[in-house]
């Protein structure tokens, strides 16, 4: 996902222009000089202004191999201070499964229901991260039922039962 400063600068510039344009289309406040568009305009204009040095830096900088630029992990954390070791080859599918699974989870939750869908998702994630299938199924079922019970009965948050009443309800 690492991108050069020139590309980032261009994205920020486009986003800033879009925000300023969006803010300009907002209706003014009757009888006032300021309105709902003022603050987004300041934000968008600042993004445009900051995109320029990024663009300039990106265009000026020599091309570097991907992954060689340092970057902070969190506020105040010098680069690599909280670095994690390289990914295990057996679990290189973990991130695609996490994201793809969540993308599928969103439209299916109300249809399939929390229990069934979550067991499937947890099993998929554990498998993708290198866990065994029997263990994943056992753990997935247990943790899903425990969380469902805790939230539904303990905290009063009804989780979607889905259209599969025998299993989901």
């Amino acid at each position: 996902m690492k991108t050069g400063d020139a590309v980032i600068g261009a994205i920020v510039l486009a986003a800033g222009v879009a925000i300023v344009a969006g803010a300009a289309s907002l209706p003014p406040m009757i009888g006032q000089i300021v309105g709902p568009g003022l603050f987004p305009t300041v934000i968008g204009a600042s993004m445009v202004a900051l995109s320029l040095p990024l663009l300039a830096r990106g265009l000026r900088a020599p091309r570097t191999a991907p992954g060689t630029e340092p970057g902070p992990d969190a506020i105040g954390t010098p680069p690599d201070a909280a670095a994690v070791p390289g990914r295990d080859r057996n679990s290189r599918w973990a991130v695609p499964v996490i994201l793809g699974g969540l993308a599928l989870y969103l439209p299916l939750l109300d249809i399939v229901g929390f229990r069934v869908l979550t067991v499937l998702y947890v099993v998929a994630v554990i498998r993708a991260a290198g866990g065994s299938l029997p263990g994943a199924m056992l753990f997935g079922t247990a943790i899903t039922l425990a969380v469902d019970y805790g939230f539904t009965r303990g905290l009063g948050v009804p989780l979607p039962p889905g259209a599969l009443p025998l299993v989901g309800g």
Partner: protein
Amino acid sequence: MDAVLQALQMVGTPTTIAVILLSSLFGLFVGAIPGLTATMATALLVPVTFFMDPVPAIAAIVACTAMAITAGDIPGCLLRIPGTPASAAYTDEAYAMTRKGQGELALGVSIMSSTIGGLFGFVVLAFTAPLLADVALQFSSFEYFWLAVLGLTSAAFISAGDRIKGVLSLLIGLFIATVGMDPLTGSARFTLGSEELAGGISFVPAMIGMFALSEIMRTAGTPFDAGGIAGRVTGNPFRGVGAALGTYKAGLVRGSLVGTVIGALPGAGGDIAAWISYAMSRRFSRTPERFGTGHVEGLVEAGASNNSALSAAWVPAMVFGIPGDAVTAIAIGVLYMKGMNPGPTLFTANPQNLYAVWTVFVIANLLMIPFGWLAVRAARGIFQVPRPHLMATILLFCIVGSFAINNTVFGVGIMLAMGVLAYALEANGFPIAPVILGIVMGPLIETNLLTSMMITQGDVLGLFSRPIAAVLGVATLAIWTIPLALMGMRALRNHPAVGRGRTGNRTRDA
């Protein structure tokens, strides 16, 4: 006095005590797992606090964070992998001590110096916050606007790495805060016609996505060896700690002081405090050559520093509603949700709530001693929790926590989008904490800006019309302009044409 007694009664209820103990255990567990941060622990805890009264809700956050930061020292010491970024500064030193057979001492010193630093920060909070609150009562929208902008400026400029990217992170957060209804007129902004977006981007799923999902993505499939050296630490971690703290008491006090000052600055958290204190410890040490070889001195100072910063970050959070770090940004969100709006009125309207939260600070810091001991004893077991199962469990809590905010799947979508955004930002060197600070502070800044501009009838110079506002405004502008001016001067000095001119003058002079 009545308020203090009421506060003690509130904290003394079985529910609050149980919440403190369970949150401490949760923080201890998450903090001790390499790669999982205290901020992530707090983010995951917030959905559960919806269902609590205000005092236990805040107690949960205070206890969990303090414990997670302390527990973060354990994997650093035993595996050379910092449990949280706040432990990174002295991980090598602590690990070197473990290799020398002094692992127990390293952990004991970390626990005790964290406790002392945390209590020091609390004392500063208890004494300075009411004084500042008296001043804050005189503040109008002008002062609040500049104070918030100054806070965010510090957050963006103090963050490590690229300043431009730090400020951009902040702007992204501020933009996210503008999505939904405008606070004054109720106009829908940037909602793309979505009814759900008209309600704004909820801070809880956004925060869970940015701090928990992105972190899971970052660390997914990264194994670590739990065996080996972890098994060597079996003795009493508190043996010899008193002597070490006595020998380096000046460092202990200095670390606590530095951490308190840094923690009170908006945007600067325990991680920055620990790095600075470790560097100062080496600078002022009589034996700087021993640093890096497994020397306890730096641990004493930096360990006190990161926990005192944690307590001190609550000073601007409680007095002005301006977060000191990412954790207090989350806590401010919880305070608002619970009707304990941060600000000077918190000290006058319901002081018993405030005193109750302070009591929790003391309890949480004292609990670090027995719980820290427990964590050291249980370290091997914690490290051996299977990573895939742990990851799936955290993801499950991310989903349920994001869902619970409005009981809609839209929250899970926000969490996913924000997680991917944070992952992409981090991969490109953008810090994440300013984004969350921007989301939390956006409405405060916008409301005070618009109110002030309406009073001045659109005159920007009117924002400087009150004395304190003028001082804060000038300070903010100075932080922005001085580095730019210095950069310009440096660029001018290095410019070939200027360089030639100077050489020519010198030649003529000669």
